[in-house]
């Protein structure tokens, strides 16, 4: 009996001693950037996101409380199964402590499930769907840069206020497109507008002329593009060709990245309004980051996703340093305590549902004559305060919150 107690005590002692020493597992902090390195989203996230994460680690000093920080990256090819198996391998065999970027909702949700199960941190910058802070929320999961709710509020409200009160949607026929359309419809109707129709197009789709013609004959003042990437680019390019924009109808790109505008050219994209979480030419700090980023990325300016990866990695490192551990749950608690103040977010805060609440910006694409040079694309029309842009916490469908 006594021996048993002794053994138990010794075991407990050994365990607690172990915990006190090994605050950082493997004596290393390992950051994984899991993103699309080869597909549709590789320009707006991709290697730029990996580079942004490396920049954050370098700017942090390369070491965390004397412990080395390492960055690894992988291509999830926008596929949920690949994403979850890489995440599992990283967590189980390679000592990765947190995963970043995770563009594409399907991949993001797959990784979220693994991270929640392992008690590891995932910070999403690239994916759009609000599901990450609602049905799929996690105590160690965060959504950093933007979401469909914020895009809808930002662009939807602004457009209706300017008189664009009747809408027709061109919607990518998968979860993200449906979500984006639903969120925007809600905003449009709430601000007194009406929705005249919608067409769900295959993803990806090259020729939009047929859908544009349907949108044209609907008579709607606004054609809402609830899609992304090359779909959005093709739709905008062809709307100009078919004289839709010249005919008085306006396009509202619900999710347009800086890289998309670069691809379209100002001649085609001018006048379009959209919502973004970051634009490089805002103030000295955002320009300084963009300049450094550009030097490493062949002159490209960062998209909001890439800037968000930098910001989220930096915040993670600060929290891991303050918490003196890389334990997912403890670092996540510390992350929620610390405010976020950097070139990306002013007084940003992490909510219980994992949402990083920060100001968003309504921007308009400049006319070619207004642009002073390459990448000088946006003028900021309005700053949308974070609390207005993001879904109120009280409305969150995050199961953990609803239990309380």
């Amino acid at each position, binding site marked *: 009996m006594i021996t048993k107690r002794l053994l138990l005590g010794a075991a407990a002692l050994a365990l607690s001693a172990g915990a006190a020493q090994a605050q950082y597992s493997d004596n290393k902090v390992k950051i994984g950037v899991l993103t699309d390195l080869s597909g549709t989203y590789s*320009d707006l996230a991709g290697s730029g996101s990996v580079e942004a994460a490396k920049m954050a680690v370098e700017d942090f000093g390369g070491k965390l409380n004397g412990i080395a920080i390492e960055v690894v990256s992988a291509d999830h090819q926008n596929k949920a199964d690949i994403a979850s198996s890489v995440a599992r391998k990283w967590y189980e065999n390679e000592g990765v402590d947190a995963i970043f970027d995770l563009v594409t909702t399907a991949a993001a949700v797959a990784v979220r499930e693994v991270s929640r199960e392992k008690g590891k941190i995932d910070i999403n910058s690239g994916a759009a769907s609000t599901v990450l802070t609602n049905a799929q929320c996690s105590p160690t999961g965060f959504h950093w840069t933007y979401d469909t709710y914020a895009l809808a509020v930002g662009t939807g409200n602004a457009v209706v206020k300017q008189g664009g009160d009747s809408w027709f949607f061109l919607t990518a026929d998968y979860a993200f497109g449906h979500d984006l359309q639903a969120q925007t419809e809600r905003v449009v109707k709430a601000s007194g507008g009406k929705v005249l129709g919608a067409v769900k197009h295959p993803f990806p789709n090259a020729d939009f002329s*047929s859908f544009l013609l349907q949108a044209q004959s609907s008579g709607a003042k606004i054609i809402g593009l609830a899609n992304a990437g090359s779909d959005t680019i093709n739709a905008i390019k062809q709307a100009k060709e078919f004289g839709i924009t010249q005919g008085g109808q306006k396009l509202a790109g619900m999710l347009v990245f800086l890289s998309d505008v670069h691809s379209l050219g100002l001649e085609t994209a001018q006048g379009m309004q959209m919502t973004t979480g970051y634009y490089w030419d805002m103030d000295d700090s955002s320009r300084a980051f963009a300049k450094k980023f550009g030097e490493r990325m062949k002159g490209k300016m960062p998209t909001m996703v890439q800037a968000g990866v930098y910001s989220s990695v930096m915040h993670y490192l600060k929290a891991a340093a303050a918490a003196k551990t890389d334990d997912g749950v403890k670092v996540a608690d510390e992350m929620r305590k610390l405010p976020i103040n950097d070139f990306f977010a002013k007084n940003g805060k992490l909510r219980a549902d994992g949402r990083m609440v920060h100001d968003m910006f309504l921007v308009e694409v400049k006319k070619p004559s207004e642009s002073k040079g390459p990448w000088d694309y946006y003028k900021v029309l309005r700053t949308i305060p974070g609390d207005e842009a993001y879904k109120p916490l009280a409305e969150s469908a995050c199961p953990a919150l609803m239990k309380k």
Partner: protein
Amino acid sequence: MMTIFGIPAQALFGQLLLGLINGAFYAMLSLGLALIFGLLNIINFSHGALYMMGAFVAWLLLTVLGAGYWTALVVAPLLVAVFGMIIERTMLCRLYKLDHLYGLLLTFGLALVIEGVFRQLYGISGMPYAVPKELAGGWNLGFMYLPIYRAWVVMASMVLCLGSWLLIEKTKLGAYLRAATENATLVQAFGINVPVMITLTYGFGVALAAIAGVLAAPIYSVNPLMGSNLIIVVFAVVVIGGMGSILGAIVTGFLLGLVEGLTKVFYPEAASTVIFVVMAIVLLIKPAGLFGKRS
């Protein structure tokens, strides 16, 4: 107003016209594929990548050399055709005696390499390419607004397709080509340089893809994956038309453009699959394809 299945007749005409325009691209690409398959026995999976190259070379000519659309329309196909002929001479020519599968694998691999190189160099979002000034604007046809450029695409495609068909079916050169497909040794015995003819044929098929690429540049996003999204559909077109049938490829190309156009009106969600449904049905009823001679 007259309606057909609940859609105003005028709107339907517009959609049919758009279908025809898309069909023009299918026809040009499937014509090249059918030509290459018919004469070289190669299933050219790199066709989509070569189409993409056509568009990219046009963009490069514009940004690097300042050469406009019309120059690109001539120069880009020539450059890409030369590139294609080098591939044929150095790699494809070793595969003629082997099973189709080897050619398919090689060209598929080539497509991945070409797309990978362009993706590495130019990223994925694509490059801007404006409609040439001469063809900007459009006509109001009453039932729809027709961009002049789209009309030009249909016209160019029809001329090219008809020209190619005449060349192969009605000229002496075409007769040599067709004879060489049947029995290369015999044709060679008559003093005709069959290997050169095959190389030129491959070059011609590739040039057709590149022309389609240049024609597509002002309409679609010029990006490294623009071809891979299209190639599967074009293959289905060739299969439906009958592998190796020139006329089949052309007619089916336009026809399926129409079918797809109608699907986009009545049930848009199925627009990307309808061609494969047609393919399955055709293969069940007529395994050799609509215009195929043998089964």
